[in-house]
């Protein structure tokens, strides 16, 4: 089921879509987050940042940015 990263459960996730301009896409892709990439959500703060593991390193993503990343749980 499609969800944004903020609402998604703490699990392995596949990035389906990133709702943002080219700057955001660039910023995220440099850290390894792009359409099709596999990430693992570790935890999220209520109305705060989400921490994900990507390419074997951990990254904190701010609240409004996390709403723009659409993911699907990877079984």
């Amino acid at each position, binding site marked *: 089921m499609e969800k944004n990263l903020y609402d998604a459960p703490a699990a392995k996730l596949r990035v389906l879509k990133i709702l943002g301009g080219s*700057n955001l896409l*660039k*910023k*995220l*892709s*440099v*850290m*390894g987050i*792009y359409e099709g*990439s596999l990430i693992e959500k*570790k*935890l999220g*703060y*209520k*109305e*705060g*940042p989400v*921490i994900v593991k*990507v*390419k*074997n*390193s*951990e*990254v*904190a*993503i*701010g*609240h*409004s*940015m996390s709403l723009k990343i659409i993911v699907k749980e990877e079984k």
Partner: protein
Amino acid sequence: MKIILTGNPNVGKSVVFSKLCGYEAISSNYSGTTVDILIGKAKIGNCDCEIIDVPGVYSFEGESVAEKVASSIIKKGDYDLIINILDANSLERNLLFALELLSLRKPTIFLVNKYDIARNRGINIDFEKLSKILNVAVIPIIATIGWGFDVLENEIKNFSFKNKNYVSDVSIPPNTLDKWKMIGQIISKVEKIEHKHPTFLEKLEVLTTTPSMAIPFGIIVIIASFWIVRFIGEGLINNFFDPIFNNYYYPLIDKFRNLISSDLLKNIIFGKNPVAMEGFGIITTGIYVSFVVVLPYVFSFYIVLGFLEDIGYLPRLAVILDRFSHKIGLHGYSGIPLIMGLGCKVPGIFSLRILDSNRDKIIAASLMLLIAPCIPQTAMIISVLSKYSIIYTFLFFLYLFAVGIITSFILNKILKGSSSDLFIEIPPYHIPVLKNMLFKLKIRIIQFLKDAVPAVIGGIFLINILDILGFIERISLFFAPFFKNIFSLPPEISSIIAIGFLKKDVSITFLVPFNLSLIELMVSSFFLVTYLPCLASMMVLRKEIGNKNSFYVMCINFVVSLIFTFLFSILLKFFGV
């Protein structure tokens, strides 16, 4: 031979740097920015090398100031060899920048650092295979203990005798997504991750990022840091710097006082009266403020900050503070200058450079100057109000805090744009290396001495000139009726306020002889705390965020201070204090 050190942030670049250059290095500012670059000299084999520590970068596409500076240095090509450092724990992520570097076709060596930590965490890397695939020398190292550096030295020797090719010819796709594909294939061939029981540090990482535990832990860390800064800072002042100044320095320079015949010159150099803090002499008050009042706090502050930085806690603190910070127009990282400003504004202002946008800097600077009286000021306010019920002290700080929050809330609405979103790497914890911490401390103290001390002394000189020209007296006469009518304060204290920004903590004690009532004391203290930053922070602010922005910040401060001082006096009277 000129060598540049490159790599992602948090890969241990500065440790490699100090291992190569020893602990002698100079920090120099990259012109037009607030980015500082370390340059050192090393003798490797028979070869004299100049080594340049380039700021950490995730990619040439990066947008931050540090990343732009790094990209421009690397792309300029004005060097002989690139040593790129990768973190064995996040090799995959690190390879993106590594591939970007290889596509420049410059002589390159890769160092894969933190080999020991990666092994403990179950990460196995086939370095030989990686080297073959990328056609570049790949050396595993443990920078903290110097393991692997002999291999590096050999490679550098080989390079200088030109008996091996160091320019990779592997074809690299130009766009980022294709690079990630290539990296995926490389990783599947060279890296195996086996499951291991989490190490102690890994358990601590989980504990201090899980919200329910992280927030109380964060509060404890902040309070403890604050207490340690104060303990070390005050200890140094009372037991070391102040006695040295009063018992040795002052009596010594006082002997030279009579060598100068001109009274005017004597006043400027030695001050009008023999009390070090009041005379405003360049070599009395100037030296006292720089070395006895500010330096000990800068020193203790950087010890604590360096420790939190090296262990890897600051990004976690930024995560915890993020939600609250966004409400007042900042992101989590801005909490850090703010917390620093509680100790002493000078290091707080220095740390504004971790923020990228001007907007963030203006809001954080205004908030810091309003909300966070430095430790000496806080101590003075507490002591001045101590003869009244503790409720008033509490009320005072509560009001100060509320004013800060309201102001940045309003600034957030007024200033164009919105606060940038947090997007940072959360590095694994590391046990700090003492030698490295001391090295960083030294660099920072030298920077403070270079930046802040001349500024303070210059400022005191300026005050003297203004005083001689009768300017200060005029200002205080001009404001006297204003104090009387608007703030209901005795007009005499305007003279204290006119020069109060020089030494804000001391100026609060100057209020005592006027026998002010409780309301007058609270109102005038509030004004003294907020109306202007102290001389040292004013000078550092100008240097750090530029003339225009610091002018804005000081105007914001002054206007907010006038409005809320007025409001404070009305509120206090209304509630019949």
